[in-house]
């Protein structure tokens, strides 16, 4: 049963076609990876799904309903949550305050604070609750994005490069979080350039290049696809 | 028909003086992000300095600029160094309030020195007229019109296509990154701020002939300037001049063709209407 469907979506910025008639679908409970060269249109795609960008053409449906034109905050209430690649920070709120606000989506004030603190702990930001997000290092900011996602009790999350810049050992915590969420039934769509991570987590991978889908399949299939190797991996894949 | 031409001429001339006032604020904002609420009082200061120079040395305002521009530039530099720079990194509104305090100081400093009577500074061109068919133009306005457009275009070119101009914008967008490029952030900020205030001395002199001045007029200038700067898109100097013209024409047409309060409302109505449909201001290219 498909849970999230992107159908024939095109997005143009002036003369530039960032997404070109792209389509794929995600079943409930899946972890789908999206990869593609820089500027392929991955972030734009997330923007379209999460309601921040209106596509020039095409259709997006979620949980059986079209969601085009629905504002991002309402999508969050319906369980569709995204993280930002270029981290969006709040200038004058502590990390805990930010995550608490996210938790308020489904919880009353009292519970929200504890829930938020727990979320921070889970992604590995324990002890940094009262820091201002602006003074966090880039990687911590990305973990904070993940914590915000968790706190809203989502049914589906779109993660845009939350692992970039983490050392292998540091990816352990977020990977565990993602796996656990998935076990609880949360559908996950993630963009990542860190191959070991995506190969380990994703059940299926969609590859896009110049705004078009060029391949789709299990990690093993993708690794062997010559077009993907040419466009994306290059000769050796250990990065 | 005569009315229409005269209204248009009047609007354009007055509007260009509004634009002229706003250039300095655009420059100051462009580098420091400071919205200077003492802007109008600096214009007052420039005007009263001309008045002082006339009383003491019988200098024509157009000649006084030789003295007032450097002096105001220096004042601008000092204000930046001692008042604005210490506030870097603090809330935007705090800095605005600081300039508000400065406005009180300037306005009342002027009052203490010059008294509260409206005063006039004579100039050779002040009562000269230029008559084009049915339309009468005041020579001081024409001079201000020409100089302000020249200045706006000069600043526009400077900001777009010189290294100094690019540095100014870079410092505004990301001071840390600008420093990493080898831009002397501190120097660019002081220079630009000082220049922004220095230009006001020029604007003051150009507006002065025929305008009675009073120490309390500053806030009025600040408000008009703000409308124009925002309309023009903050740092686009050609846009700012255009903004000035629009406000000027709205004012002239409002006064001439409409009765009472509605006429006075005209510039504001036009402003709100434009801002709603072009929130980024009147800049040529829409910024992506």
């Amino acid at each position, binding site marked *: 049963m498909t849970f999230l469907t992107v159908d024939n979506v095109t997005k143009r910025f002036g003369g530039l076609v960032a997404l070109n008639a792209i389509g794929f679908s995600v079943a409930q409970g899946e972890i789908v990876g999206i990869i593609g060269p820089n500027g392929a249109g991955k972030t734009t795609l997330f923007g379209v799904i999460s309601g921040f960008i209106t596509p020039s053409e095409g259709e997006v449906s979620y949980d059986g309903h079209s969601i085009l034109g629905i504002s991002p*905050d309402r999508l969050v209430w319906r369980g569709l949550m995204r993280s930002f690649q270029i981290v969006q920070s709040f200038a004058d709120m502590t990390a805990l305050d930010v995550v608490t606000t996210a938790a308020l989506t489904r919880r009353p004030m009292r519970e929200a604070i504890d829930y938020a603190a727990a979320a921070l702990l889970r992604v590995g930001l324990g002890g940094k609750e009262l820091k201002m997000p602006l003074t966090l290092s880039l990687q911590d900011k990305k973990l904070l994005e993940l914590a915000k996602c968790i706190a809203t009790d989502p049914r589906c999350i779109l993660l845009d490069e939350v692992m970039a810049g983490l050392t292998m050992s540091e990816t352990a915590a977020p990977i565990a979080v993602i796996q656990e969420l998935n076990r609880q039934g949360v559908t996950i769509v993630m963009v990542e350039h860190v191959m070991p991570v995506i190969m380990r987590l994703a059940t299926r991978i969609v590859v896009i290049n110049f705004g078009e889908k060029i391949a789709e399949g299990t990690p093993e299939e993708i690794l062997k696809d010559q077009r993907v190797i040419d466009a994306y991996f290059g000769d050796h894949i250990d990065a | 028909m005569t009315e229409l031409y005269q209204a248009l001429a009047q609007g354009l001339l007055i509007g260009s003086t509004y634009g002229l006032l706003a250039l300095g604020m655009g420059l100051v904002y462009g580098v420091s992000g400071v919205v200077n609420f003492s802007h109008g009082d600096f214009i007052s200061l420039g005007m009263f300095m001309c008045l002082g120079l006339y009383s003491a040395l019988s200098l024509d305002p157009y000649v006084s600029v030789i003295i007032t521009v450097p002096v105001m530039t220096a004042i601008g530099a000092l204000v930046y160094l001692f008042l604005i720079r210490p506030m870097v990194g603090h809330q935007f509104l705090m800095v605005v309030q600081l300039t508000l305090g400065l406005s009180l100081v300037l306005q009342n400093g002027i009052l203490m020195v010059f008294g509260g009577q409206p005063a006039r500074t004579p100039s050779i061109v002040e009562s000269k007229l230029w008559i084009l068919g049915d339309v009468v133009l005041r020579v001081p306005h024409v001079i201000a019109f020409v100089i302000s457009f020249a200045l706006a275009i000069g600043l526009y070119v400077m900001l777009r296509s010189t290294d100094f101009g690019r540095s100014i914008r870079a410092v505004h967008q990301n001071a840390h990154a600008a420093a990493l490029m080898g831009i002397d952030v501190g120097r660019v900020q002081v220079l630009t701020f000082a220049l922004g205030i220095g230009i006001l001395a020029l604007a003051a002199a150009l507006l002065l002939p025929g305008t009675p001045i009073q120490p309390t007029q500053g806030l009025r200038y600040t408000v008009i300037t703000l409308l124009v700067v925002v309309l023009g898109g903050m740092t686009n100097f050609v846009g700012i001049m255009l903004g000035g013209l629009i406000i000027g024409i709205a004012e002239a047409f409002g006064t001439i063709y409409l009765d009472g309060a509605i006429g006075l409302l005209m510039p504001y109505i036009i402003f709100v209407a434009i801002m709603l449909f072009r*929130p980024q201001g009147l800049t040529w290219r829409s910024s992506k």
Partner: protein
Amino acid sequence: MKQEFYDTLSSPILWGVLLLAALLPFALSSYYLHIVTLALVYVALASSWNIVGGMAGQVSLAHSLFIGIGAMLSSALLLKLGINMWLGLVISAVISGVLGAMIAWIDFRFQLGHLSFVLITLAFAEMGAIVVEGWEFLGGASGMLLPKDTGDFLAFQFGGGSGSFWVMLTLAAVCVLVNVAILNAPLGFYLRTIRDNEKAAQAIGVNVLRYKITAMVISAVLASVVGTAYVRYLTFADPYLLISPVITIEIVLFATVGGLGRAYGPALGALLLVPLGEVLRGKLGSALPGLHYFIYGVVVIAVILATPRGLLPLFERQWERWRRS
């Protein structure tokens, strides 16, 4: 609602301070009572502005409209149509609320940037002033003189002096407590995310439009109510004071200098700066004209340079130090 709010409400310090304040009319002369009353008016106004300007970060310069409606409209209704001022207060508050909602909607609908919002609200404020000054019904440029305050509570009269002081004290306390309540409620969290980053706020489920409107309506209604009470205290409905953008600029000054977005910051700013201005004028008004304003300006600059985050954090640090020793 966070526990802190209930703690504040049941705190003996709060009630002690209020009680002590309520006794002031018995201790102060009429002039100093006036200064304190005036300070309370600005405490209430700055605190109400803080909800939208400080917490939600929407620097509105349109508050003179709400104050002006509260003051001028209720006076006009009383004088021209004989409508009881209590009812006038409600009518004005409703109209202010609707207007506030409209402005917030425009802000959202057209995605106004920071400065465009400031300037559009300023333009609205200027237009409001022009309309009032040009419209006979609202008193025109001459304003309106309310009937003598005989202390008839049912006619919205409090007997001047101490009566008005108590009214203002209540209003100021209400406005500050509304601030405390909001900051401890979900609304406070929503507003702060909106202030810092609207896009990111949306992404964590904050309905930006709804909460902007909520904040603006609360703020506008409070400002309007204070406006009505203020004009009753002044007795003279002066358009150049009550609906001029200058009053907003003063309010913003107090709120900012006190501590923006914090519950007690604006109150602190007003409590310190209003009496300072009044006393300076009283003491120096007869000296060189302008000197007292000049000094006031210097003090404002000095305070801002010394405590660029506002006075409140400074006080909090002192308070901590004092508590520890």
